[in-house]
C-alpha cells in the first residue's frame, strides 16, 4: 500500500530513503546504484525498497465519499 516505515527484518528506517530512491529509479538510474548511493547495505532493507509498489495512490480513490 504505502512504503513501510521500517525494514521488516532489521528495523532500519527505510521510508526516509523511499522518495529519493523511487524518483531516481523512475528517471532511469540503476536501482543497484541508487541503493548503494543511499547507503542501504543489507539485503533485507534493499528488498523493502526494490519490491514496493505504491498501491495506496490508486486504492485511496475508492474510499472518497
Amino acid at each position, binding site marked *: 500500500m*504505502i512504503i513501510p516505515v521500517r525494514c521488516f527484518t532489521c*528495523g532500519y528506517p527505510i521510508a526516509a530513503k523511499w*522518495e529519493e530512491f523511487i524518483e531516481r529509479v523512475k528517471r532511469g538510474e540503476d536501482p543497484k546504484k541508487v541503493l548503494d548511493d543511499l547507503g542501504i547495505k543489507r539485503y533485507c532493507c534493499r528488498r523493502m525498497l526494490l519490491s514496493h509498489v505504491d498501491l495506496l495512490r490508486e486504492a*485511496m480513490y475508492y474510499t472518497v465519499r
Partner: protein
Amino acid sequence: MNVSLRRIADNAIEILIQGLPLPIINAIRRYALAKVPTMAVDEVAIIANTSALFDEILAHRLAMIPLYSEVAIRKYAEPPPEVCAKCTASEAEEKPPAEVCKKCFVHLYLEAEAVDREIVVYSGDIKSEDPDVYPVYNNIPIVILAPGQKILLELRARLGRGLEHAKWSPATVAVSRYVATIEVDKKRCNLCGKCVEVCPRKVLELSNTEIKVRDIYECILCKQCINACPNKAIDVVPKSDEYILYIESSGALKPATIVREAANILISELEELLRKVVEWRGRKVTAQ
C-alpha cells in the same frame, strides 16, 4: 584492556575491543537492543481520519518513526519506563497517579487535509510540544491523501525500552563478531591464488612470494578460503581475546550514546548486586 574506534559515522559505530570477555561485550550488545530507552509514539487519539488507511495502521506507522531522544532520556528519566508502561497497559492493575503519567508523555499533533489535489503527509508535518523531541527524519511518508480526505491526530510519546516493544529499540543492528588469525603454511602453498579469488571481503592478496593479509579486521571467518585451497595450506581461526562490536542506530540516539547508555545500565545493575552482597556480609548462615 585495549579499546579502539574502527569506524564512526552519523548512524553507526564500530569498536575493536581487546581483553574483554565476550559475554560482557554480548551483554552490552543486548542492552543496546533491549534496555537503552528512547522516545516513541505510544498512544494516538484519532480525532478525524477519512484517509484510506485504517486508524490502527496510521497509529502503527507513527509509532515506527524514530524520535530524537538524546535530550529526552535525561529529561523524562523519572518515572522509569517501567512505570510508564503500566500507565498505558490496558489491564488496569495499580496504575500510577495521573500527575506521574503527565510527566512522562510528550504531546505531538498531526493535521493534514487534501483540498484539490493529492498530498503526501510526512513525518516532518508532525508538530511537537517539546522542542527536544521531534521526528529524526522529516521525509518519512505517513499517508497519502486524495482530494477531500483529511487526518487530525493527537499523539502521545513516551520513553520505553526495546524489551517492551521494538519501536523503542535505539539500535537497528547490534552485533559482536570475532577477529580472525589467518595462517598460511608456506611449505604447502603453491601461490595458486584460489583463496584470493573466493574471499568475499578481499582480505587476501597475492604477492610474488606469499599470500598477504590486507586487513585482518575485514575477515568475517567465512572459511571460503579454506574450502577453496587445494593444498590445505590456509587456516582461519578466531582470536580468543579480541572482538568487534558494531552498532547501528535508528537515529533516535547517537551510536556512541547507545554504547555509553548500555554500559551504564550494565554497571548500575552490577552495582546493585554488589550492594546486596555487601549488605549480607556477616550474616549467619542458616540451614534451610
